Each structure stands twice: as structure tokens, then as C-alpha cells.
């Protein structure tokens, strides 16, 4: 077959890039918002670039820029960042068994790139298994990093000249991408219960403006799904015994 190794890696790079493309475009308004907000709140250009380049977390950037502008104490800023970032612990845990065995360069780079968006694309059982799939993840996560950085710089340079892009409804693109990734996985009752519970509690907590709401609603939903699956397994055993 005329299909050598190098070509296979190139195809995986391309596939990773294409899979992330909708999400790369969907975060454009937030990237611009983060960049322009930093400049408007008297960050220097260097500081405004280091936010996406090193912190690399949209919700943290937005909240922290406002907190720093309000002269909030450092402890408050750090604690808030910790709370908003705590959902990442779940992502690390979910991929621990697959990634902990890899060399440091893979662990550190994929760890750094482990955003909501990369997590969203890595739901398959086979994600991160084998060099080719790692290349795919690196292309997806890496392209997201570069786009996020670029959108922020766009905001830093042109923020004040652009209209408010967040009112255009581009957040719908993020929502619909997640829908397209979640719905096909709803093949059994426990996952359906997980999804409904997560949706219900996330809305309640969001309306209460609770930063911890995302993690908490996820944990409650995971627990409900887990209990439902165990219950189902027990019922199946009983059925088998009865028949």
C-alpha cells in the first residue's frame, strides 16, 4: 500500500485540525473580548499577551481582568482562578490511566493543552491510544492554542475598533458543537440520566451566578449516571437468574 508512516501522521495532523476547526472559530469573539478587555483595563501589551499565552483559559482571563481592575486582593484572585479551573481536575482524572504512562513531553504538552475543547473531542475510548491518536490530539489542542492566542492578539490590536462580537450569538457555535458530540453518546439510559441531570443543575447554578456550579452540576450528574448504571446491572443479573 502506498501509505507510509509520514503520510499517516500528516493525515492525523489534518484530521485533528479539522475536528477542532468549528471550536477554533466559535471562540473568536471571546478571544477578541479577552484581548481588548485587558488593554481597556490598563494591562500592558506584554501582560495582555501573556494572559492567553500562559494562563490559556478564557473564563479565568475574563474574571481575573475584572478582579484586578477592581484591585481585589491577590488571595481572592488566586482562589477564584482555582475554583474556575477545578473542572480540569476531572479531565486529568478521566485521562489519567492513558496519559500517565507516557513520556514527560507528551504529558506536559497535552496537559497544557487540556482545555474544555480538547476534552470535548477526546470522548472516544481510543482517544490518546497510540502515537497516531496522540498526534491527532496534539494537532487539535495545538491549533486551538494558536487560534486562541491569535484571537486575543487581534483583540489587543483592534479591540476598540471592532463592534461587540459577543452579541452576534457566536456562542451558539460552541453549544451546537458540544450537542453534536454529546447526543451520539446517549445510547443508554444511564448516559441519558447524566445529561438531563447535568442540564438541570447547570442552569440552576448558573442562574445563581455560582462559579463552582459547572463542576458541581457535573459531579452530581456523573453520580446519578453511575448509580443508574449500577442499578441497571443489578436488575440485569436478577433477570438472568430468574430466566
Amino acid at each position, binding site marked *: 500500500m502506498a501509505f507510509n508512516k509520514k503520510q499517516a501522521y500528516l493525515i492525523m495532523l489534518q484530521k485533528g485540525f479539522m475536528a477542532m476547526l*468549528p471550536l477554533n472559530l466559535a471562540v473568536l469573539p471571546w478571544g477578541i473580548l479577552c484581548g481588548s478587555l485587558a488593554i481597556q483595563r490598563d494591562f500592558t501589551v*506584554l*501582560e495582555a499577551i*501573556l*494572559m492567553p499565552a*500562559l*494562563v*490559556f483559559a478564557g473564563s*479565568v482571563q475574563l474574571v*481575573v481582568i475584572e478582579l*484586578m481592575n477592581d484591585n481585589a486582593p491577590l488571595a481572592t484572585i*488566586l482562589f477564584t*482562578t*482555582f475554583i474556575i*479551573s477545578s*473542572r*480540569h*481536575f476531572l*479531565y*486529568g*482524572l*478521566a*485521562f*489519567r490511566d492513558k496519559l*500517565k504512562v507516557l513520556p514527560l513531553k507528551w*504529558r506536559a504538552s*497535552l*496537559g*497544557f493543552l*487540556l482545555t*474544555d475543547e480538547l476534552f*470535548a473531542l477526546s*470522548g472516544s475510548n481510543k482517544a490518546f491510544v497510540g502515537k497516531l491518536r496522540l498526534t491527532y490530539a496534539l494537532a487539535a489542542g495545538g491549533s486551538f492554542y494558536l487560534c486562541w492566542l491569535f484571537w486575543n492578539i487581534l483583540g489587543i490590536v483592534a479591540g476598540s475598533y471592532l463592534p461587540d462580537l459577543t452579541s452576534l*450569538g457566536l456562542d*451558539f457555535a*460552541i*453549544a*451546537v*458543537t*458540544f*450537542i*453534536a*458530540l*454529546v*447526543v*451520539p*453518546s446517549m445510547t443508554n439510559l444511564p*448516559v441519558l440520566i447524566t445529561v438531563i441531570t*447535568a*442540564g438541570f*443543575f*447547570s442552569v440552576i447554578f448558573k442562574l445563581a*451566578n455560582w462559579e463552582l456550579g*459547572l463542576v458541581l*452540576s457535573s*459531579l452530581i*450528574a*456523573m453520580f446519578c*449516571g*453511575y448509580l443508574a448504571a449500577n442499578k441497571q446491572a443489578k436488575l440485569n443479573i436478577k433477570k438472568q437468574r430468574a430466566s
Partner: protein
Amino acid sequence: MTLITILLLACITFCSRYLFLHPKLPLRMGAKMTHFLSFSAPAVLTAIWVPIIFIKDNSFNASITNPYLLAATVAVITSYKSHNVYLTLGTSITVFVVLQLIG
């Protein structure tokens, strides 16, 4: 001062992502924990997308004039029928844009 704060923030976000990937961390994941975590993707992703659809300007909006809700319904149906990410994105974003233009 801002620079130091930014470096500290970077440490927090990186550590939150990397911590559980570290092999030296004394944590063995049993079958129960793995099973529990298998629900993390549908749970977290849903907890992100549902509020985008239903909450506008800090209030709950489930009326049929909410373009987010209508287009999301199209997305759920398309995704359920086709299992195709691009088709789902294409149809629902088209519906969404048309609704935005009409509204």
C-alpha cells in the same frame, strides 16, 4: 506585580490540568472510579452547553421565540438521526442565522 500575578495564574491553570496526569501521584484508579469518570464527558459538556441555550442576560428563556432553543432543537434531532458532526453544525447554524436575520 501584574506579571507575578499572571505567572501564578498560569501555575494554577497548568497544575489543574496536569496534576492527575502525573505518574508519581499516589493514586490508583479502581474500576469503580473509572466507571464513575466514564460519565464525565456527557456531564461536563452538557453543563457547558445547556446554560448557553437557555440563559440569556441572566434569566431563563425557554420560549419558542428563543432562536438558541429552536436551533438547538434542530441540532439535537439532526445529531440523533445522523451522528454526523458537520451535518449537525451545518443545519443548526443555518437555522440559527436565518432566525437571527428574521428576528
